[in-house]
């Protein structure tokens, strides 16, 4: 059924749905996220968490200075994060700018990484300030180049001025291009949405419009994937599953730099959305520096002494 039968695609029905959502108890969300962050995960659980987190990493490079060589090196790392230890799993995906998608896809296929999808940031990432025509072309280009996942940004200006239907229609249009060729992740840039209420509204808006994943941030703006924001989004996917019977994924990105942060996120997932979400098809972490720290923690657990960044690759 279109839009899960929850809205009919009109401005009025969307507004009425979003305005009926209960407000977020901001103090409660902060306190709950802070409380869950105190959980201590040790020994075998920590080992499991590290390996699970590695499979969930969307290994990302989104720099103006990206080169083909850098993207290829990133792909090699995605397939085999630690070349000296074959028991380390591959990461969830490689996330690059649009023009690097074909480079990444070709290189992954040539080095035994056919199982790793390439995610492309799309629709005039990171600002989202372009005409719809450009955004559609941008997305089409990425899919033609072999992207299996599209990370689109929403028009925060339209959202903040209450023009929800415009944001909704954009997501619907991009979802149409993706079809069954690519997963659609919708980026809110929660640092610009300001309130948790807005994060909750944006979450439902994106899910109704057909997002397969909702993603916190571009990584270009701070604050990004703070635990309370992720908590609000996890509650949204959990409740949406009750309403529509479909599990939508969540991808925090930006500011998750070390193993401790990553494990905090996994605890949030388990305690909020539930263990069903603890899989790379429903939870991803967008990061670049995180993977090295996960590898170093893994070395520490194996060797019994603290590792050095000199023994992992730079990017």
């Amino acid at each position: 059924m279109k839009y899960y039968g929850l809205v009919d695609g009109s401005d009025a029905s969307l507004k009425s749905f979003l305005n009926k959502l209960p407000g977020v108890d901001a103090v409660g969300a902060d306190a709950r996220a802070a409380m869950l962050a105190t959980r201590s995960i040790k020994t075998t659980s920590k080992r499991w968490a590290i390996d699970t987190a590695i499979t969930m990493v969307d290994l990302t490079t989104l720099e103006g200075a990206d080169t083909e060589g850098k993207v290829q090196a990133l792909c090699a790392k995605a397939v085999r994060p630690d070349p000296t230890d074959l028991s380390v799993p591959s990461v969830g995906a490689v996330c690059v700018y649009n023009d690097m998608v074909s480079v990444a896809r070709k290189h992954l296929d040539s080095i035994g990484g056919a199982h790793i999808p390439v995610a492309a940031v799309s629709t005039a990432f990171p600002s989202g300030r372009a005409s719809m025509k450009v955004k559609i072309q941008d997305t089409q280009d990425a899919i033609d180049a072999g992207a299996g996942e599209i990370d689109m940004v929403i028009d925060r200006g339209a959202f903040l001025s209450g023009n929800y239907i415009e944001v909704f229609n954009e997501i619907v249009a991009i979802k149409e291009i993706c079809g069954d060729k690519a997963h659609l992740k919708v980026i809110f840039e929660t640092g610009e949405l300001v309130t948790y209420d807005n994060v909750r509204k944006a979450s439902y808006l994106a899910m109704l419009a057909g997002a397969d994943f909702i993603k916190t941030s571009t990584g270009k703006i701070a604050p990004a994937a703070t635990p309370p924001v992720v908590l609000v989004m996890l509650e949204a996917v959990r409740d949406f599953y009750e309403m529509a019977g479909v599990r939508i994924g969540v991808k925090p990105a930006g500011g998750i730099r070390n193993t401790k942060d990553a494990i905090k996120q996994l605890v949030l997932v388990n305690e909020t959305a539930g263990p069903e979400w603890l899989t790379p098809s429903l939870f991803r972490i967008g990061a670049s520096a995180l993977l090295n720290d996960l590898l170093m923690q893994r070395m520490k657990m194996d060797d019994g002494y603290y590792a050095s960044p000199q023994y992992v690759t730079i990017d």
Partner: protein
Amino acid sequence: MSKRIDVKKTYKLFIGGAFPRTESGRTYEVKNSRGVFIANPCLASRKDLKDAVVAARAAQSGWAHATAYNRGQILYRIAEMLEGRRDQFAAEICELTGVTPRKAQEEVEASIDLLVWYAGWTDKISALDGATNPVAGPYYNFTIPEALGVVGFIAPKKSALLGFVAGIAPIIASGNTVIALASENAPLSAMSLAEVIATSDLPAGVVNILTGKSSELAPWFASHMDIDGLDISGLDAKLVTEIKKGGAQNLKRIHSFKEVASPGRILAFMESKTVWHPIGV
């Protein structure tokens, strides 16, 4: 009017320019030479050490790339700041170790002078140890000593301030960053020195100071792959073999020193870079 209650100082750690408590929440009692309770400093854990190494590593490149002249100025600045607090440090040493006020004063003065002495070495050490080497070819060939990286320091049990300064000053003079474990019995001068360092323009993370048991932490200093060198001047003799074994994994440079003022203490934590430069190009 009721009698005023003294405001006692909480002795915390010094990591990355901040004064955090130990993540472990542990403390231990420090008593003076007559057995009177003085303070409850932090009993740092291996995770505090891990955090300190991260801070030291982050600060290392910037500190090594500061000009030698600038590093000298900052070491001199630490001496200036310490000069202004001579009496506080002397009183602290007196109270803790039971030496005479005259002796305590002398130790503080010697520490200040030692900082100035090492400040002078920052832009001279490469002239002492560097060389232009004769080679059989149309090249200039230079050898230049450069900073090693992140260095650990187990401070001597006695001579709480002078021994401590004699450890950190030569390590940082060349552009290394340091994680120092203060004397277990007399850690208070080192922690007060952290307050001096924090107001001396030294970039955050160049000096990090922990308090705790060297028997607990020294093995972690030794085995940590991201610590490049270790000054074990204050380590118990019976632990030395274990520590040297632990440091073998990453070829850690491990040294112990008797002399307080020696350019050898600087050079011990430097490595030589040799550069070939063609003549006539």
